[in-house]
């Protein structure tokens, strides 16, 4: 998979390395900015309140 990507990047090894690095940073950015904030409330690691209803309800579930 990564080999395939590498072979399809243009330029010599240096150019490819730089493009690969930029792609990598773009992926990390997308994860931190969009994917993780979306995924976090779905995972049960941040619930701090006591709550009569079942967790995940509106408002105080988390």
């Amino acid at each position: 998979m990564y080999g395939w990507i590498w072979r399809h990047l243009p330029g010599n090894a240096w150019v490819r390395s730089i493009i690969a690095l930029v792609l990598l940073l773009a992926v990390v950015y997308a994860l931190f900015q969009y994917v993780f904030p979306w995924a976090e409330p779905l995972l049960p690691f941040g619930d701090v309140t006591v709550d009569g209803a079942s967790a995940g309800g509106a408002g105080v579930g988390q």
Partner: protein
Amino acid sequence: MAARTEHDERTDTSASPPPARRRVRHPVATAVSVFGELLITAGLVLALFVVYSLWWTNVLADREAGRQGDTVRNKWADAGPGALDTKDGIGFLHVPAMKNGEVLVKKGTDPKTLNNGIAGYYTDPVKSALPWDDEGNFTLAAHRDGHGAKFHNIHKLKNGDPVVFETKDTWYVYKVYKTLPETSKFNVDVIQPVPEESGVKKPGRYITLTTCTPVYTSKYRYIVWGELERTEKVDKDRTKPVELLG
């Protein structure tokens, strides 16, 4: 990331001697190789998620909490005595035993509020009293890890430790009298106006801190109760009460 470069280099060295096309691999070998790379990728993404949860959310939350705290302090400095404004936050919680400076307290315990690195007072399922009410329970929640982790060191609190709440014109000095290291998240009784589970029977002016436990998970809740010991007027230099000077 590391795996990617390593792999790239490896592929590169093995692939560069012959022109562009490599030797033909068995489809099963290709499938296994892609599967392995996906596993490595998944591992790296999970590791990054840990970095995000335990570090990056703290960076964001501390920045936001600092900004909101400044707003409140500026407002206090500018405005003379006026109507109580709970929108920007009602004051700051100081808990010397937790060694985390001051924590802005705002209304509500929904994730959006708490994720800004502040503590929130309950509006639901049991409405919190406010410190200046004649009696009741001032009930707070904050994150144990990530998003500022303002109650991270809640386990350092012992009976007799001071918990000080600062408002525009009063210091409320509470003393911890009971801790409950583990309870169910459904145990709403801990934030009742008279929290009988802590051993008190009569209405009084209590404070309750709640967060999750054990650290890094949300399986149970950690509870700390305190009772108001005294109040102090804020003077013009905002001299801190003795509990915070140590």
